[in-house]
C-alpha cells in the first residue's frame, strides 16, 4: 500500500512547504500524467490555465441588475458605491445569500425527490422499492407528528411523505425537525427570529430580498442566510437523510475499498456519480442479478464491477459496500482509465468536461435526471415507476459496451475502508442493544482522552492540491486526540489515504487511541454523503442531550471544517452549522466575501454573538489546524474541563441525592 501522506510521521518543517498543484493522491498523480500523455484536458489543467477573477472571488462583483455589473476594487473598495449606491458589504452579503440559496436548494430538492419517491411507494405505485427500515419510518413519523399506531408501513410511508412535502411547501409555521435541536438552541433561534419556515418560502424570500433594490442591509441579508440554511440543515437535508434511511436502510459499518484501484481490468466497470441513491440503489441490484452476471461472462468479462464517485458513491458505499472510485476531482480521471463502460450521473457535481473525455474512449456517459442534461450527452430519463427496468437497461448497455473497450490504464492504488457510521449506529456501537447512547463519547471528552470532535466535510477544489488540506487536517486532529467525522468528498479523501481503517487508531493521540481500541472504531468516522451532514447535527444535539458538555451545541468542543470547498452547497452547510452554534472554518481557496471586511466580521464575530457559532475563511491547512485546536481547547476551558477534577466517590448520602 502506498500512502500519499505518511499520517504517522510527526509534522515537520518539510510538511509545511506547499505541495504544488495537482493532488497528493498517487492515483490522481498517475492519471494526471496519463492525461498529459493523451493530451486530455482536466479540471486540474484548466484551473492551472485560467486564474479566478480576483474581483468576483472576494464577492466584490455585483451583477444583480443591468445597470452594472459593478465592481468594487482598489484600496478604498469598502467605501465605494455601485450605480444604485450599494455598498461593498451589501453586494458581498447579497452574493453570499444567493450562493446559500443555490446550495440549500440543491439539498432540499434532493430531499423533496426522496419524499416523492416515498409518497409513490406508500401509495403502492412503485414495484421496485420497499421500506428497508420500518422502525426508522415510525421514529420519523413520530417526530413529524404523524400518527402511526395501528397503521401499516405503506400507510405510514404515505403520511410521512405528505408531512415531509408539507415541510418544503408550508406557508405557515416553522420546520418540525428543528425539534431535534436542544431546547436552549431552539430558544436562541426563537429570540433571534431565525426559526426556519417552509423551505420554499425561505428560498423565494432570499431571491426576492437579493433582487435589486430590496434588502440592502448586510447584517439583515446574512440573517436570512442563516434562517434559510437552517431550513436546509434541519429540514431539506435532514429529511433527505431520514427518508433515504427509511427506503434504503440505516447505514452501519461495512468493509470496502477506496480509490481508482477499485476499477477492474477484467470486469465491466460501471460508475455511478452524482448525489442521489434512488437510481443507484436499483443499479446495484440490477448488477447483481444472475442474468446480468451471466451476460457479462458471455461477453468475456469476469463480472460486473460497480464503483461510485461523489455522494452517490457515499450513499451506496455505506449501505451496500459499493467501493468509491474517488471524490469530485476523480470523475475525469476515472474515465481516463479507459476501463469504464458506463458512467451514470443523476444530479450535482458532474461536469461538462466529462463529455470530452468520454468521447475519447468507449465510455457511455448517461444523464438520467429530468433536471440535469448535458449538451451532446446521451439521456436516459429515470422514472421511479420503471426504476428496475431502467437500471437493468443501463447495466445491459454497459455489458454490450464492454466489447468496444480499448487499452486500459488503472492505477493500483486503493485502500481498505470501514464506512457507514449513522448516528443510530454510533449510539449502538457505544453501548450495544441495551446501553446504546453517547455516554461513553461524552465521558471520554469530559475526562480529556478525547479533546473534542471535528467534522471534516465538503469538496475538492481544482485550485487547491487535491486532498492535501483534508488529509493533513485529519492526521493532525486525530494526533491531537480529536475525534474526526467525515462526509462527502472529504470522506473519500480520508478513505483513499487510509484513514478509514480501524488500525489507524495507532496514529491517533494516546487518549483517542485508547478509546478507539476500546470501541473498535477508527478515529475517523465516515458518516455519509453531503446531505448526511444532517446526521452530524443530530449527533451534536444528542451529545448535548446526553449531558456533561453544556446545554447547547455552541458549548460542545466541536468544530466544522471544509478544507477544500468548491460549491454553493458547501457554503449553505457552513451557514447552517454556524447558525446551529458550531465554529466553522473553510479553507483552500480565499474567502467569497473576502473583499468586504464588514461582511467578514459579520460572519465571524457577528454570528458568534448572535448564534454562538461562526464562519471563518482560512486558506492554509496549517493555520486551520492551529485555529481548530485552539477553538476546541477554548470550549473545554469554558466548560471547566481544563481543570483536573477529583474522582467522585459515592457514599449513601450522595446516592440518595442522586
Amino acid at each position, binding site marked *: 500500500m502506498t500512502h500519499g501522506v505518511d499520517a504517522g510521521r510527526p509534522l515537520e518543517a518539510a510538511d509545511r512547504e506547499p505541495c504544488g498543484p495537482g493532488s497528493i493522491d498517487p492515483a490522481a498523480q498517475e492519471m494526471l500524467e496519463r492525461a498529459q500523455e493523451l493530451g486530455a484536458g482536466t479540471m486540474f489543467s484548466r484551473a492551472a490555465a485560467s486564474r479566478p477573477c480576483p474581483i468576483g472571488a472576494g464577492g466584490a462583483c455585483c451583477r444583480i441588475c443591468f445597470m452594472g455589473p459593478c465592481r468594487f476594487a482598489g484600496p478604498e473598495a469598502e467605501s465605494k458605491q455601485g450605480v444604485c449606491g450599494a455598498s461593498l458589504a451589501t453586494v458581498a452579503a447579497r452574493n453570499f445569500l444567493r450562493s446559500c440559496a443555490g446550495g440549500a436548494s440543491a439539498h432540499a430538492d434532493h430531499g423533496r425527490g426522496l419524499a416523492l419517491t416515498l409518497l409513490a411507494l406508500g401509495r403502492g405505485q412503485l414495484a421496485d422499492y420497499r421500506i428497508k427500515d420500518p422502525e426508522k419510518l415510525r421514529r420519523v413519523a413520530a417526530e413529524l407528528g404523524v400518527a402511526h399506531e395501528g397503521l401499516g408501513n405503506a400507510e405510514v410511508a404515505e403520511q410521512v411523505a405528505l408531512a415531509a412535502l408539507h415541510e418544503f411547501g408550508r406557508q405557515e409555521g416553522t420546520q418540525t425537525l428543528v425539534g431535534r435541536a436542544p431546547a436552549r438552541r431552539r430558544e436562541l433561534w426563537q429570540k433571534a427570529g431565525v426559526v426556519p419556515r417552509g423551505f420554499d418560502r425561505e428560498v423565494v424570500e432570499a431571491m426576492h430580498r437579493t433582487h435589486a433594490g430590496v434588502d440592502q442591509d448586510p447584517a439583515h441579508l446574512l440573517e436570512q442566510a442563516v434562517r434559510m440554511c437552517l431550513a436546509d440543515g434541519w429540514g431539506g437535508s435532514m429529511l433527505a437523510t431520514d427518508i433515504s434511511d427509511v427506503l434504503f436502510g440505516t447505514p452501519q*459499518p461495512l468493509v470496502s475499498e477506496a480509490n481508482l484501484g477499485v476499477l477492474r481490468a477484467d470486469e465491466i466497470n460501471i460508475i455511478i456519480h452524482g448525489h442521489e441513491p434512488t437510481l443507484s440503489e436499483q443499479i446495484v441490484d440490477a448488477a447483481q442479478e444472475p442474468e446480468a452476471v451471466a451476460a457479462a461472462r458471455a461477453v468475456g468479462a469476469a463480472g460486473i464491477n460497480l464503483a461510485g464517485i461523489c455522494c452517490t458513491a457515499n450513499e451506496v458505499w455505506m449501505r451496500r459496500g459499493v467501493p468509491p472510485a474517488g471524490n469530485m476531482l476523480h470523475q475525469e480521471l476515472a474515465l481516463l482509465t479507459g476501463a469504464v463502460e458506463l458512467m451514470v450521473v443523476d444530479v450535482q457535481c458532474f461536469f461538462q468536461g466529462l463529455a470530452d473525455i468520454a468521447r475519447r474512449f468507449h465510455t457511455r456517459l448517461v444523464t438520467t435526471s429530468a433536471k440535469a442534461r448535458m449538451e451532446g450527452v446521451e439521456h436516459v430519463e429515470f422514472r421511479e415507476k420503471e426504476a428496475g427496468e431502467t437500471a437493468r437497461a443501463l447495466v445491459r448497455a454497459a455489458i454490450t459496451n464492454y466489447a468496444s473497450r480499448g487499452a486500459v490504464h488503472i492505477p493500483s492504488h486503493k485502500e481498505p475502508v470501514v464506512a457507514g457510521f449513522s448516528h443510530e449506529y454510533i449510539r449502538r456501537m457505544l453501548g*450495544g442493544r441495551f446501553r446504546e447512547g453517547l455516554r461513553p463519547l461524552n465521558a471520554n471528552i469530559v475526562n480529556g482522552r478525547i479533546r473534542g470532535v471535528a467534522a471534516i466535510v465538503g469538496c475538492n477544489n481544482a485550485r487547491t492540491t487535491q486532498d492535501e488540506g483534508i488529509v493533513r487536517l485529519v492526521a493532525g486532529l486525530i494526533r491531537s486526540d480529536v475525534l474526526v467525522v467525515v462526509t462527502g468528498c472529504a470522506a473519500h479523501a480520508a478513505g483513499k489515504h487510509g484513514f478509514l481503517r480501524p488500525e489507524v*487508531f495507532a496514529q491517533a493521540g494516546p487518549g483517542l487511541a485508547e478509546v478507539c481500541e476500546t470501541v*473498535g472504531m477508527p478515529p475517523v468516522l465516515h458518516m455519509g454523503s453531503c446531505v448526511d451532514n444532517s446526521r452530524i447535527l443530530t449527533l451534536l444535539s444528542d451529545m448535548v442531550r446526553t449531558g456533561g458538555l453544556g446545554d447547547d451545541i455552541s458549548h460542545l468542543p466541536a468544530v466544522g471544517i471544509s478544507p477544500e470547498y468548491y460549491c454553493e452547497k458547501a457554503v449553505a452547510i457552513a451557514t447552517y452549522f454556524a447558525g446551529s452554534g458550531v465554529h466553522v472554518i473553510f479553507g483552500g481557496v480565499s474567502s467569497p466575501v473576502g473583499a468586504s471586511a464588514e461582511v467578514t466580521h459579520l460572519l465571524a464575530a457577528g454570528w458568534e454573538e448572535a448564534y454562538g457559532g461562526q464562519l471563518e475563511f482560512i486558506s492554509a491547512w496549517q493555520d486551520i489546524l492551529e485555529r481548530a485546536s485552539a477553538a476546541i481547547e477554548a470550549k473545554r476551558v469554558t466548560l471547566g474541563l481544563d481543570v483536573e477534577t477529583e474522582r*467522585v466517590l459515592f457514599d*449513601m448520602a450522595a446516592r440518595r441525592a442522586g
Partner: protein
Amino acid sequence: MTADSGGGVREVIAGGAARGARAFLDLARERLGTALEQHEASTPLEFPNTAYFLPVIYAVTGRAVQTLEDAVWILDEAERMIPSPPADALWLPYLGDTLDAGMAAIWLMEVVEALRYLGVGPAPVDGLWLGAADDVIMRARGVEFVDGSAPGFAAVTGAAPSPEAAAALAREMQEKSLYVFMAGETVLDPGLAAQRGASSLPGGAGAAVPPGYPAATTFAEQLQAAGVQLGWETRLVPFGRDVSSHIYSLGFAVRVAMAFGGLTPGQAARVLDYTRDRVFAFIMALGRVQDAQFAAAAGALNFGFPTISDSDIPSILPGGICTYEQVVSRVPHCSIVSRAIETRGLKIRVTEVPVPVAYGAAFAGERIRREDLRVEMAGPQAPGVELLLSAPSQSVVDGRVTVVGPEVDSVPQGGTIPLGVLVEVSGRKMQKDFEPILERQLHHFLNEAEGLLHVGQRDIVWLRLSGRAAAAGFRLEHLGRIVHARLHADFGEIVEKAQVTVFSLSEDVERLVERARAVYRERDERIGALTDESVDVFYSCTLCQSFAPDHVCIITPERSGLCGAYNWLDGKAAFQIDPTGPNRPVGKGAAVDPNRGQYDGINSFVRDASHGAIQRINLYSILEDPMTACGCFEAVSGVLPMCNGVMTVDRDHPGMTPSGMKFSTLAGLVGGGVQTPGFIGHSRLYVGSKKFISAEGGVARLVWMPRRLKEELRSVIEQAAQDAGYPDLCDRIATEEDAVEEEEVMAFLMEAGHPALTMDALF
C-alpha cells in the same frame, strides 16, 4: 493506552466474550434439549420462591420465563445477539457487540442455572454451594444495601494464589462491610473442569497463569480450607462452582431494582441505569480468566459493574459504560480491594476500632460454636445487663474504660462469667430520650467484632468470645473500647464524652441489673405515653431514596418505619445527629382527616419528597391513599374482601396466602413507592399499634397471618386486642394451618366467631 499490544481488548476481551457466549449457548441448548427430553414443554422452569421468574431475563426483556418452552425464545434471542469474534484486521466496532454478547451470556447462564433446579446439570445446592438467593434473602439483605450497612457487593470469580491469600482478601472485604458473592473457578488445564463433571464450558484464550496458582479451585473452597465461616450471615456467599452461578449476583441486583426501585420489567435502559447508579457492585476476577468469565464480565458491564483482575488481561480504562473504568487488570492483591472500591466509585467509611481482631458489619452474623468458644458472658448461666445513661459532663472522662472484676483469661476454657456494661455519656445535645436508642446500638457495636457474638439487649444479653479472638488478646476492656469508638463515630453529634465500666463480679452485675430495671420501667412508661396526638411533629425517613427515589416514610410515635428498624425516637435522634440527613421533623399541620390520619403538613411534605408522585397519604388507612413503601417492609397487609378483614404476612413466610399471592408477589405490588389501595407494607410490630389500620377498625380486622408470626407477636396482639375490647381475638385469627384459600378462611372465621364478620362492610 494499555501496556498490551493493540489487539488486546479486541482479541482477548471482545473475542473472549464472543467465544464464551457461544459456549454458553451450546451448553444451554444441550441442557435445554435434555430437559425437554425428560419433561413436558410446559414444565415450570423457575428458581425457588421468587416473584421475578428468571429475574435478569425478566428485568431486561420484560419476558416472564415460566416453562421450559419459554426458554426456547430466550435461547434464540441470545443467539441473535452473539457476534462473531472481531476480525484480525479491518475489524468492525466491537464494544457494542461485546456488551450484547455479554448480555446474551447472562441470559444463557440464567437458563443453565434454572435448569439445574430441574435436575439437568449439577445440583445447585451442594456442600458449601448455596445456589439461588430467594426473595426472602433478597429483601432481608436488600435492606442492608438500602440503609448503607452493606455498601455493595463483590462478585468474585476464580481463586487466589493460596487459601491464606483468599482469607486475607475476604477479611478485607468483610471489614469494608461488602458482601462477597462467589462463583467460578480458576482452572489451569481447561480439560480439568470437564473431567470433574463440574462444567462442560471450554476454556479459551486466557492469559498466562501466574506462578503458584492452584490447578482448579475456587475462592470459596479456599476460604473453607482456611477455616473461614461462609454463608449469608458472614456476607461470604458461595453461589456455585461454575461462573454461571454468578447469575445470582446479577439476579440480586436486578431484583433490588424492581423491588426497591419500582422499575417495570422490560425497561432495560432504566434497569441498567439503576444498577449502575445505585447498586455498587464489581467483579473481582482472580487468576486466569477464561472465555466464559470474559462473557459473564462483559454481561456485567451492561449493569455498570466493572471488572478488577489480578491477572494479565487487557485493561479498559476509558469511561462511559460504568461509572469510571470498565476493566482494570494486573492489580496486586494488597491493593485490589481498595482499587476495586475506587473503580466502582464507592466511598466506604470504616471506623477504626482499637481491638486485636477484625471489625466490621460482616462479622455481625458470625456464629461461635461451642468447640470454638473461649468464654461465655452473661446469658442463661450468669447475670448480665447493659445500661446506657446520660451523665453530667464533669462526671464523665472520655475514653475511660474500667474493668471491675476478673478478666476473661481467668475463666476456664468454655466457662461463663457475669457481665454488666455501664455506659455513661455526656453532650450538650444529649437527651434522656436518646438513652435507649444508643443503648440498643450496643448490640450492633459489639457483634461486629470478629470472634464476638452478642445476643439480646437490656438484662437479657448473652455474649460469646471465640478462642481465636481470646488468643489474639481480646479482653473485657475491648468491649468498652468498641463502644467508645463507635459512639463517637456514629453519634458524635450528640455524644461528646463517653466512659464505660465493665463489671464481671456477680454482686456488681446484680446491683447494676436492679438499677437498670428501674430505668427500663421509667422508659417504657414514657414511650407508652407517647401517642400520635401527643406530638406536633412526625419524622420523615428518606433513607431508602438511594434505592427507591420516590418513596418517603412518615414515622409517628404509633407507626414505626416499615422496615422495623426506626421508630419516632430514632428519627428524633437521627435528626439531632445529622440535621441534613434522611430523617427530618415534619410538622403535622392541620388535621385534614384525623380518623384516617391525614394532615396537611404531612401531605405537603410527601408531595415534595416524592417529587410529586404522591399527593396525599392516610397514615391509618389501608383502603384510601395508604402510605407507600420502598421494598424493605417487614410485612404486608392486604384486604381479604370476602372476609371483611385483612391478612398480614411477613417476609419470612414462603407459602401461599389467602390473597392468592405469596409474599414476594405482594411485595412487588406495594413496593417501589407506589400507592396500592388495599395493600400496605409495614413493620411487624405495627399490628400491635392502636393506629394499625384504625381507619378501617384496627386490629379486629386481622383475620389471617402465618402461624409463626402469630406466635412471635402473640403478646403484642393480645394486648392490642384487649385494649380494643376483643380479649380473645388472637385465637380467632386463622393461620395457614387453618386455611389458605379465602373461602376456607371465611369458614374458619365463621366457626371461630371472628369480630370482623360483624363489623361494617369494608367496601
